[in-house]
């Protein structure tokens, strides 16, 4: 169920240059069912900035009623968000959208998880759930440069983790595709979140594989009412368009025209 709730900041931490990890707590966590879903946050009680910001859920802890997000403080909204301190309230609308299905793969099989920059966070909860299920995840995570790399250790604890930076300042040099070319493709399903160009490259690289891709669009309502976030579709599905917020943000590969 979608709810709107004032949730409390438990922790706010800088984990890389301009990259923040924010943990909130509240009952709404109990409704978070799938990795890859997102929340729509109000960053201010004032009328400016006005709109909510969509941020992916990066890990969920039902026991403590806490969930964590990782985001880059970039524009006005995310900068304000980064100023929230423990005890402050954040107005959360969520959980929204459809995440990564974890029922497409079985214990003992391998899964490929490919993240680009600020698209990495939702893969963390996914990977945890896959591991719990007995699936073996392989992580390929691309970043701009060393100073914005985050969560390497956390992913390593869950499975093989390859870091690649565009400027070569850490891990291998280049794009995630450069790493992927050198890896076996003995995985069952791939999951990815990151820049659209990256998602497009993956679809091209693994035309025969089952894949799940998380897309981004500018949003208004976040719940499917305003038609701000539509994407064109391919012949693969019947609909003329899909909405990232309510039909996605995760779609099977081949559905969204990239």
């Amino acid at each position, binding site marked *: *169920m*979608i709810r*709107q709730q004032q949730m409390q900041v438990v922790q706010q931490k800088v984990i890389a240059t301009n990259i923040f990890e924010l943990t909130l707590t509240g009952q709404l966590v109990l409704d978070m069912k799938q990795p890859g879903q997102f929340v729509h946050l*109000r960053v201010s009680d004032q*009328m*400016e*900035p*006005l*709109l*909510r910001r969509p941020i992916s859920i990066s890990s969920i802890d039902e026991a403590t009623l806490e969930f964590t997000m990782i985001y880059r403080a970039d524009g006005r*909204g995310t900068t304000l968000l980064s100023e929230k301190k423990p005890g402050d309230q954040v107005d959360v*609308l969520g959980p929204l959208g459809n995440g990564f299905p974890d029922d497409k793969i079985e214990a003992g099989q391998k899964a490929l998880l490919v993240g680009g920059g600020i698209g990495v966070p939702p893969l963390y909860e996914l990977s945890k759930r896959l591991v719990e299920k007995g699936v073996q995840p392989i992580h390929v995570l691309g970043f701009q440069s060393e100073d914005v790399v985050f969560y390497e250790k956390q992913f390593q604890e869950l499975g093989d983790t390859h870091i690649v930076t565009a400027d070569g300042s850490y891990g291998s040099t280049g794009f995630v595709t450069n790493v992927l070319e050198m890896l076996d493709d003995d995985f069952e399903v791939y999951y990815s979140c990151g820049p659209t160009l990256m998602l497009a490259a993956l679809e091209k690289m693994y035309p025969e594989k089952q894949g799940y891709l998380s897309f981004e*669009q*500018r*949003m*208004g*309502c*976040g*719940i*499917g*009412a*305003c*038609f*701000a*976030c*539509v*994407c064109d579709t391919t012949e693969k599905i019947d609909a*003329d*368009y899909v909405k990232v917020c*309510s039909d996605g943000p995760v779609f099977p590969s081949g559905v969204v025209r990239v």
Partner: protein
Amino acid sequence: MNRLAIELPGLSLKNPIIPASGCFGFGKEYAQLYDLSQLGAIMIKATTPETRLGNPTPRVAETPAGMLNAIGLQNPGLKKVMENELTWLEQYEVPIIANVAGYTTEDYVTVAEAISKAPNVHALELNISCPNVKQGGITFGTDPFVAEELTRAVKAVSSVPVYMKLSPNVTDIVEIAKAVEAGGADGITMINTLLGMRLDTKTGRPVIANVTGGLSGPAIKPVALRMVYDVAKHVSIPIIGMGGISTIDDVIDFLSAGASAVAVGTANFVDPFICPTLIEQLPQKLDELGFETVADLVGRSHRL
């Protein structure tokens, strides 16, 4: 007696709070959050004769205390709206105001004639002012003669009262209001969005793929309020006011300026529960201001 009730042509509103067209889809999404029967009415998304896929994305951009949109009237088209959306909405006790759009008088007439026959459509709202669509559209709302003729044509075929939705992008909105009144409009809804633009400062490119978009939200409230106030002085048909409403004080201001009911657009995106919240806050606000009914409050600024 219901203190919040308002009687308008075609519309017996249990309260004056109506989600604005294009900001509430056909209600399905908000129905997940609360019971739509609470609402005064629902203004559904613009409906055109055929399916429309709208503009390329990005379609929205944030601006100071406002937002731009260039959705481009995306909608499933008349047939599907009637078969799927309106039928589905029948489960709720809420009158529907069908927003009608098009590029020719025939478009409007086609949609108006058919959609006005749906049992739960109690009024039409003619979107003659959407600034997002390149052909036509814009002219209907900016030329008094054209606006009057269109009103007349639609009135001739509609089975329910017709409200004309005015564009604020005009030199003299009173002139347009008088023209649609002369054309037989049963009411006016106002305002649609102001034409605006945002650039990506890094690249210099427009943020909205369509280059320009319609400005809505709190930023435009002063303009909307001024227009409602001016039009209320000069026409005798009722007005449904909108533009930046996001608090109960905003509702009071539009009613005071002469609107008989209000529509809430952008604020739904900021707070999806805004409409029921406003409905809940209204009685107490009436008490505070010393008014027995909403109807008593309508137009009070003109009586001071």
